[in-house]
């Protein structure tokens, strides 16, 4: 065990993956010598050579296309998109190509092993081009897996699982936690299974669910609610696609109430999918409407970021609304 921040945990995971399998190759804008603008790939070029860790020209569609080709050949490209806000030029390569590669070829070819890593989310005074949380755009695309870690230990285990996964994975990294989140991380190779949610706290009055950077936000809200005697079950979804319907449904069957939090705008965000599915699966158990605490339906603002974000106070209010309905 060692103390690592999230960047160190990610760097460590990449290091282990590259050491284990020489099909693993890391690239992206500034990823090479410099180690990435956030330094997640620090020292990897030094260690594994320029052929396996390198800068690309400044073209996200090219990075994604290149990654698709490498993966189709059988390698395991780990491509970095510098900010999730800049993943959209690669949207066609990801949504029409990556996601459909195996299906369209009848399994003659596939891009399993491909991982897109990208920092997402707000909290760094980045405005709408350095703060977006685009997971829902991808969640509507069969063929992709989508993962979001909340802390260093998770980041490492989930990233290793993603690289080892026979399906392509988009790995969203909460950039505001890169250095802020520090924890004990095993130095060994380990994986955390994809597609499984984690119940962090048992409770009986209301289920409160989020993923990634919002976990610490909902925890704060839950603590406030607990102080008032509201017993909360806390779930970290971890995987957005596939998502762990059973764990969530089971919890809501028990609590009868659900509050979902995410940073992306409300309309069409992934909370909508969760709420729709759960209202159907748990209809007779629901004691109050499912609450979504999300970003506003506006581009991520700068000066008024605090007002925009689905913070602990808004979540706390939603928990109370849910319980007092």
């Amino acid at each position, binding site marked *: 065990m060692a103390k690592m921040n999230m960047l160190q945990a990610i760097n460590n995971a990449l290091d282990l993956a590259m050491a284990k399998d020489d099909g693993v*190759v890391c690239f992206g804008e500034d990823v090479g010598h410099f180690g990435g603008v956030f330094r997640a790939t620090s020292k990897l070029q030094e260690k594994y050579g320029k*052929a*396996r860790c*390198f800068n*690309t*020209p400044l*073209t996200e*569609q*090219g990075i*994604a*296309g*290149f*990654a*698709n*080709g*490498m*993966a*189709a*050949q*059988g*390698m395991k*490209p780990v491509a970095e998109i510098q900010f999730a806000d800049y993943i959209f*030029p690669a949207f*066609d*390569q990801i949504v*029409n*190509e990556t996601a*459909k590669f*195996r*299906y*369209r*070829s*009848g*399994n*003659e*070819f*596939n891009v*399993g092993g491909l991982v897109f890593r990208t920092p997402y989310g707000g909290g760094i005074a980045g405005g709408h081009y350095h703060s977006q949380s685009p997971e829902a755009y991808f969640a509507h695309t*069969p*063929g992709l*897996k989508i993962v979001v870690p909340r802390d260093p230990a998770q980041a490492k285990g989930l990233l290793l699982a993603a690289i080892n996964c*026979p*399906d392509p994975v988009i790995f969203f990294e909460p950039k505001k936690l890169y250095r802020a989140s520090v924890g004990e991380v095993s130095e060994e190779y380990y994986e955390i299974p994809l*597609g499984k949610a984690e119940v962090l706290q048992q409770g009986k009055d209301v289920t409160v669910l989020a993923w990634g950077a919002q976990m610490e936000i909902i925890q704060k809200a839950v603590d406030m609610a607990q102080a008032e005697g509201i017993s909360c079950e806390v779930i970290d979804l971890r995987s957005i696609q*596939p998502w762990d*319907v*059973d764990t969530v449904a089971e919890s809501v069957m028990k609590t009868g109430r659900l509050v979902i939090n995410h940073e992306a705008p409300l309309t069409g965000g992934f909370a909508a999918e969760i709420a729709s599915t759960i209202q159907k699966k748990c209809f007779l158990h629901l004691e109050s409407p499912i609450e979504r605490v999300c970003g506003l339906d506006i581009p991520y603002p700068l000066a008024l970021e605090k007002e925009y974000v689905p913070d602990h106070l808004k979540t706390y209010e939603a928990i109370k609304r849910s319980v007092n309905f």
Partner: protein
Amino acid sequence: MTNPNNATISTVHTAEFTSGHALQIPTLRILQDDGSIYPGAEVPQLDQATALKMYDSMQFIRILDERMLAAQRQGRISFYMQCLGEEAATVGSAAALDDKDMIMAQYREQGALRYRGFSLEQFMNQLFSNEKDLGKGRQMPVHYGSKDIYYMTISSPLGTQIPQASGYAYAQKLRGLKNTTICYFGEGAASEGDFHAGLNMAAVHKAPVIFFCRNNGYAISTPANEQFKGDGIACRGVGYGMKAIRVDGADILAVYKATQMARDYALEHEEPILIESIAYRLGAHSSSDDPSGYRSKEEEELWRKNDPISRFRLWLVKQGWLNEDEDKTKSDALRQEILDALKVAEKVAKPGIEHLMSDVYETPIPLLNEQLEELKAHIRKYPDAYPVTAGRFE
């Protein structure tokens, strides 16, 4: 002074533009219309067996195209695309490759596919999207693919295969394989952003890929002069610091020669190469298209004389490698074979319902299993509404 800008530092003191046509690339031609060799041209090394395999592949595609377009007209298949006029470009280039060089094509390269050995049955199964189709009946006709013969499954979105080819070739290099990737695309697709990304990345990362642009004059109805203002596609090579060559795409010897050179160079120097083939899309864009809406019969007639197959046939005859009568008999037999194969393939069942859900992920996610079970229950309830699958599952 250091040169971090990665640009020539020669100085001039008078302001003058470099012309947008400062670079003019000639077209390599070896074989004349009458089957003779251009004076001064050299025939590339080509043995009789290879030459005949090339010829057979072209003929096969020509006849298949003719038959299957007719089949489409009869409503037997839903869609079709011909290679007409570009058989030499696709076969000649494929013939210059190693069998394990990856082919990443656009959709009009059935010549290359046939040369690699895709069987008549395989063609038919794909065209009828039946359960024997390697692609499990999931894509429209002509979206062929086969791992065994290193032919990447076709994808409709244009240009996407270009950066993919760069990545594939880069992986071949990293693996230490002595193989290249050839990437075919139309002059229309060359306008996509993916073209720029793919060529630039291949140049920067020294991926041994052969970019083969089929400049056939049209992208559906859009003529090349509404597609770009540069001098064809080959001149873009300098933009990427990439060697380039332009060939007459109806001249199979020129295509063969250029591709052979490109392959050798790409492997030896670990560098991409850009080949531009100049030919003409003699047929309609696809079975959904009617070219009379955008080009003249006269233009088509002019180009029809430029037929890549007859030229090569005349050369083979001159070489004493081909007998015209035997050739005729063989073609007639082929027509019959194709008809027979068609009749077989159209009767083969569609893929089973489990193949709706397979291959989305390597292993179906729980949601897909659930959706499949629900769907089966639904079909059992309304079997008449789903005749293709009803009653075919346990």
